[in-house]
């Protein structure tokens, strides 16, 4: 394992001078390697920005998730101007819009109304971890509205809903992964350590779940959710379902690793000094699978995000009016809406960017922690 190695100093005295000849911990070494991986760093920063955007959705979004506007259905993206009609550079402003076609929802700028974009404005009220506030990053004066990437068919701001939806779409991956990883670790660890018929039985059970096509199982499980669930419960249930589908595959790989680790001398040694079996598994064997777990965790999160998006897209995941990146796209399944209001596809691009960033970041982490696993 990479953890136990101490790397000989590469560029001699300069390093020694800096950290006083101290042996760098394996984590520090991995971090240094990761920092050199350009794409991984880009991915990491994109992910940090996206997650902050979602966590502080209340602040970054100009409107609340549920604010509808019947006079602005399917509003096209508002154009932000920085050149005033006189041709001078000014603070960013927008024009008011008027609907010129009520059937096809075509809006045009009305150059008689000018609304500067204001920062740190009072907008829709929200409560964030018990803090009641209405402070929002930007906004425009009523009656105008700013739709950075357009509005959906209820006149809800897609930009705001991207922020709020990110709370569900992004965190379903992390929470779901945490659940399935813990089950996978304990299950795989136990199975691999004990071996014999216990191992056999446990793996056969896991294989039953692996053998059912994942998406079908997802669909079937989401079908049994009672219709009256509140939005938080529904979110949690979907997360649990996703975790349920994924733990078995992780358990199988971890079992394989544990099986080979438990042959090693240090395990025999801890058995000899009388460590209990749970202690050996948890304290000695599982930490050795850590680099694999971290690498796979980053590479597995996109799978969760995509599953949630897929489920919500076809209407069996997160339900309207709650936003999720998947269910925001479901309007685009209607061909007429899709061609008239192409900005409905924006959530798809956000999902794509998220997945791409996770795989760049995951690749970097893999190279840093476990160079042999490179494909």
């Amino acid at each position, binding site marked *: 394992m990479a953890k136990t190695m101490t790397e000989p100093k590469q560029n001699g005295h300069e390093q020694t001078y800096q950290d006083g000849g101290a042996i760098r911990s394996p984590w520090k070494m991995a971090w240094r390697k990761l920092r050199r991986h350009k794409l991984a760093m880009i991915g990491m920063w994109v992910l940090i920005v996206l997650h902050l955007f979602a966590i502080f959705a209340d602040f970054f979004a100009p409107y609340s998730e549920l604010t509808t506007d019947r006079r602005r259905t399917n509003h096209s993206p508002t154009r932000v101007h920085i050149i005033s009609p006189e041709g001078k550079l000014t603070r960013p402003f927008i024009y008011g819009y008027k609907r010129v076609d009520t059937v096809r929802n075509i809006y045009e700028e009305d150059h008689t109304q000018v609304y500067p974009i204001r920062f740190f404005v009072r907008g829709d009220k929200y409560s964030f971890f018990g803090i009641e506030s209405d402070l929002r990053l930007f906004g425009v004066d009523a009656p105008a509205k700013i739709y950075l990437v357009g509005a959906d068919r209820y006149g809800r701001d897609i930009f705001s809903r991207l922020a709020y939806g990110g709370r569900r779409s992004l965190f379903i991956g992390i929470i779901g992964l945490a659940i399935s990883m813990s089950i996978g670790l304990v299950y795989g660890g136990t199975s691999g350590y004990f071996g014999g018929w216990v191992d056999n039985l446990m793996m056969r059970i896991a294989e039953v779940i692996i053998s059912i096509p994942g998406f079908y199982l997802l669909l079937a499980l989401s079908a049994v959710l009672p219709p009256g669930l509140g939005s938080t419960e529904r979110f949690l249930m979907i997360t649990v379902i996703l975790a349920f589908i994924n733990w078995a595959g992780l358990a199988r790989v971890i079992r394989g690793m544990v099986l080979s680790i438990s042959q090693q001398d240090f395990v025999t040694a801890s058995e000899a000094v009388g460590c209990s079996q749970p202690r050996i598994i948890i304290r000695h064997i599982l930490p050795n699978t850590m680099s694999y777990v971290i690498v796979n965790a980053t590479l597995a999160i996109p799978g969760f995000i995509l599953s949630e998006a897929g489920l919500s897209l076809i209407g*069996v995941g997160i339900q309207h009016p709650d936003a999720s990146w998947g269910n925001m796209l479901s309007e685009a399944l209607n*061909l007429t809406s899709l061609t008239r209001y*192409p900005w409905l596809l924006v959530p798809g691009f956000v999902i794509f960017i998220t997945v791409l960033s996770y795989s760049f970041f995951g690749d970097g982490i893999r190279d840093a922690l476990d160079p042999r696993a490179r494909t």
Partner: protein
Amino acid sequence: MFRYIVRRFLYIIPMLLGISSLSFFIMQLAPGDALTTMVLSPDISDEVLNAMRARFWLDQPPHMQYIRWIQRMMTGDMGHSFLWHAPVTWVIKQRVFNSLLLTVASMILSWIIAIPIGIHSAVNQYSWSDKLLTFIAFIGVAIPNWFFGLLLLYFTVSRGWGFPVGGMTSIDFADFTFWEKVVDLIRHMFLPTIVLTTGTVASLMRYMRSNLLDVLRQDYVTTARAKGLSNRVVVYKHAVRNAINPLITIFGYQLGGLLGGAALTEIVMNWPGIGSLMLSAVQGKDYYLVMGNLVIGAIMLIFGNLIADILLAVSDPRIRYE
């Protein structure tokens, strides 16, 4: 080898028992039983209800129901779909062909495209074409199939590319001559096949590239070059053959995913396959249809893996199964 295959076949039996009981258990979790929705539906006569009740012992405790369901499955009777007013086996059979048409076509296409690209990329490692291809492949892997499908739909409609969007045949399909029918079908298949193919090409090409790069670093390749063989012979006769071998596992997984793998794409692209059938079954709480789909999908997956293992053993003499 023979003993291994026999054992693997025997081992499928408990797996299927497990899978079917899991599907059955999921169905039990749902509020009401398989007939609840049917009782409410005015389309279903009492005779059908009573016949179903008798056939599947629905007035018995769950474990007896399960045994009965399994017994019925053995005889090929998967129950009645009330959405379709037809036996589940009949409904599934209708859709299996549609799904396979799409998935098999895209599987063949993707192998034909991906292998040469992968070879080219590996042989010309770090050339601009390799960099471009790897970059495209990276994006191809990261872009979700259904989103790519939506994008294609958007461009097809707004740019007037003239491919039919959704469905499998034109309205006047029945009046067409045989060749017109074939052309019509291919036109309808075009977009969903492209969507499915791009995703697979991207990942297959990456595998092929890295496998071939590994092989080209081996000693025997150096030996072959050293004894004066042309680059062509070294690459195509010696290296490629060994690099393709590990891909057989992927071939097996693809076989297993032929029915279940394209579900979302089918739904988004409006293709009447198993995936969209499953969605309507789930939405309509058509329980026997849901269970039937789960079991059929699982059987495909198990056999796909089995075939992959056997092919691997046949093609690679280094692999021995006990």
